[in-house]
């Protein structure tokens, strides 16, 4: 029994990362109908920004009380990462949107942006890995055979909190209503006097900010950073978003945890070599039964 609960805790932690990244995919897709393939790499950039920001604070000749560096690192990283996302939107996606090109080209551009971020990082910082300095004294709790750490608890709560906040923003605020409106009918929207570009920028700020937050949490849990860390995790999170029903905030959240549970449980009860094979076969089955994902609605045009 302990074994299963421990594996559930593992899955909750691992799923939190998928959920945090999948939320960003889903948000941008929901508003722009654009699969932002650079999103996984924005997450990677977030982890690197967290590394630089925290090293910067730690290098100051000040003895910081416990947790203060983390308290500074989180907002600075989130802001800087959302700037990266907004820059991508400005430099790469907006010009294409203005020209009214087919959405396919924007998706390809997103893929290229991702590769640019990866290789730019490689060129700037070199290939050697970075280790995030310890920002929180690690506590290991043993609850009757179940091992928990303070970082794990923080990660899981962050994911839940972010989801709840995002859900409230999308459903209860004017900006959220505008975001839904953009996806509903981007042509009628300007006629209603809603500043479309501002709403899109807001979406990118939200999505990239969450990715940045995910980056910090990831770097704290797995403190070995490399330029390609966002690619694989990002892909899987994208798949999680699709399985959950892309464009739905709820779907991304559930999809992220679902993928992690399947992955972890495959390892728990089958030889670990089958991890990805089984995990993705199960997801294929789900998509086969429900091509629009668990929470997704059928749509006329998708890419």
């Amino acid at each position: 029994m302990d074994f299963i609960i421990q594996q559930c805790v593992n899955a909750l932690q691992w799923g939190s990362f998928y959920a945090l990244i999948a939320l960003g995919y889903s948000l941008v897709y929901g508003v722009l109908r654009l699969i932002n393939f650079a999103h996984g790499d924005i997450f990677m950039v977030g982890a690197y920004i967290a590394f630089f920001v925290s090293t910067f604070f730690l290098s100051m000749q000040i003895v910081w009380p416990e947790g203060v560096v983390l308290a500074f690192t989180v907002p600075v990283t989130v802001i800087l990462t959302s700037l990266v996302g907004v820059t991508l939107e400005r430099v790469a996606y907006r010009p294409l949107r203005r020209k009214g090109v087919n959405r396919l080209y924007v998706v390809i551009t997103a893929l290229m942006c991702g590769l640019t971020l990866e290789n730019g990082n490689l060129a700037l910082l070199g290939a050697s890995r970075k280790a995030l300095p310890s920002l929180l004294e690690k506590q290991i709790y043993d609850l009757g055979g179940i091992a928990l750490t303070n970082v794990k608890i923080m990660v899981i709560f962050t994911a839940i909190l972010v989801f709840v906040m995002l859900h409230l923003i999308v459903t209860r605020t004017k900006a959220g209503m505008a975001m839904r409106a953009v996806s509903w009918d981007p042509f009628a929207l300007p006629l209603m006097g809603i500043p479309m570009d501002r709403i899109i920028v807001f979406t990118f700020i939200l999505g990239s900010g969450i990715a940045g937050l995910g980056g910090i949490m990831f770097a704290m849990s797995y403190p070995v950073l490399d330029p390609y860390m966002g690619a694989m995790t990002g892909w899987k999170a994208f798949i999680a978003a699709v399985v959950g029903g892309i464009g739905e905030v709820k779907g991304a959240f559930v999809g992220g945890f679902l993928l992690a549970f399947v992955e972890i449980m495959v390892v728990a009860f089958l030889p670990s070599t089958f991890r990805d094979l089984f995990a993705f076969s199960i997801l294929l089955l789900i998509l086969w039964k429900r091509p629009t994902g668990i929470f997704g609605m059928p749509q006329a045009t998708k890419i």
Partner: protein
Amino acid sequence: MNPGKLWLLPLAAAFLFPAASAGAATPLKIGFPLPLTGEIPKVGESSKYAAEMLREEINAQGGLEVGGVKYPLEFIYEDNESKPESAVSVTLKLINLDEVVALVGPQSSRQAVPAGGEANENKTPMISPWSTNPDTTRDRPWVFRAAFLDPFQAPVAARFAAKQFQAKNAAILFEVSNDYSKGLADFFKLVWEEQGGTVVAMESHGPRDNDFSAQLTKIISFKPDFIFLPENYNFAALIVRQGRELGYKGPFMGSDAWGSAELMELCGDSCKGQYFSTHYAAAGATGATREFIDKYRAKYGYVPDDVAALTWDAVNIILKAIQQGGEVNPDVVKMREIIRANLASISNFEGITGNMRFDEQGDPIKCAVVVRISEAGEFTAVESVCP
């Protein structure tokens, strides 16, 4: 021919016969397909640093003396991105385009096994400094290595673990897509069961995984006496940390791929007190090894890891083979044949990673050391095991 274009002739000659027109001896070209980026970039970096140090030393004396003439050395470094497919393509590029007389690298068996096949087929002598998987050199007369083999390393680790941890039950976690990791895990299991132990859990992970909590939870539930990790240093750092976070208090036993200069930076305090088998121990070295370590540290600012030392030895073995030939044949095909013949005939080589004898497969017979990661983060020798 139009007489007006006659002036082009010497120019063409200069391009076609660079050797003839240049006054000095042609440089000896050696190719290095190294993992400069990707999964194990530190391995690539320290190999390149060690090779550069040696090249600069020899070129400062005017070059390598072969049969009374000094030939400058030209080392060509290519990035194999720590991937098998890139290792094959850059090896082919070095062989066909750069026309190197010999290859040093790739380092990890994951790249060295496929690249070795290409070198052998294209009849170019290759020596892998770090690869420990038997397949790299097996039935490949053109491929050599400077490291010991996994069938030798596995019993070293197994016997040490049995004695040091008084262990009966072992668990293994390895990378399934890595020839090195998988090969060593299999050998270890074989040896461990032969000496009467039990392997309670054998789990694997993929090449781009970060989270090992599921595998570790499973392993811990079988209550092993120790966990054997034949892993690259980046995974070792993550796995040891996560094992501790999941409440595992027992020891970890590592293999030679732990021995990177970057391990302690990534792993921090969690790895202190763990053991791994490797090629040489920097702490407490003497003689030529000490000299190499001091030179390297003065030049690059950190203690060289085992890859750096093995690369140093591997390049020296190639240079010795070239010198023994007594001549530098301008025909690259012939030169490669000369080098291969001499490599095969070297019976004894005194390197900074110990004495080596070569068997008929081109594998060295040499000693291994087991090191402990001290509280200061240094790799201190605990035991030396010779075949």
